[in-house]
């Protein structure tokens, strides 16, 4: 079946560097994508979203890029901080009722 997946299960980043987390999706009909951050023992926390009619969206220290041609989504975190250490999930909306399909997640580890 169609699915959302992540290229890298673990990403180690030095504090202050930029992080890039990648996600591949296979459902060409998906029209809405979200990045979530999940810390241990907590629920997923919304970071940023993007609709399929856009290719870039910026938030505070984060940027999401969408390349529909190759069905690729990425999350860029600028000046990564220790508090950014968490598991990051991409999710796609694959129907008109808002059900999200999640990737397996990428563990981001920020080292001093």
């Amino acid at each position: 079946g169609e699915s959302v997946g992540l290229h890298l299960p673990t990403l180690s980043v030095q504090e202050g560097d930029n992080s890039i987390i990648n996600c591949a999706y296979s459902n060409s009909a998906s029209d809405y994508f979200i990045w979530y951050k999940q810390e241990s023992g907590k629920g997923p926390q919304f970071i940023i979203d993007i609709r399929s009619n856009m290719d870039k969206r910026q938030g505070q220290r984060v940027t999401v890029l969408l390349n529909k041609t190759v069905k690729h989504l990425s999350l860029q975190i600028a000046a990564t901080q220790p508090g950014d250490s968490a598991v990051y999930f991409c999710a796609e909306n694959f129907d008109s009722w808002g059900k999200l399909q999640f990737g397996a997640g990428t563990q981001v580890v920020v080292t001093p």
Partner: protein
Amino acid sequence: GAGVSQSPSNKVTEKGKDVELRCDPISGHTALYWYRQSLGQGLEFLIYFQGNSAPDKSGLPSDRFSAERTGGSVSTLTIQRTQQEDSAVYLCASSNEGRGLSPQHFGDGTRLSIL
């Protein structure tokens, strides 16, 4: 509170018992979702409520699972005759519309352990 609230935060029960998990969505949110997250895994959709419409139960793994949403607000997920494979974190989310174009906001989940 301002966020999605789930209770209990942890539940340990014996195999074969029934459990009820509760979710209080963000006030005013019309859409409510239940997901399940197994250890180290992504989230698996279970069920979705939108306003007064019939719920989308397509993700429920078996007929031991059921959910209801009373008065368009609080929701309860019930698992009957629990099995060890039901052990997981059960997450609830809500959004202010159900057409899939606004973010879902999650609670911190109920960690369910079946002995």
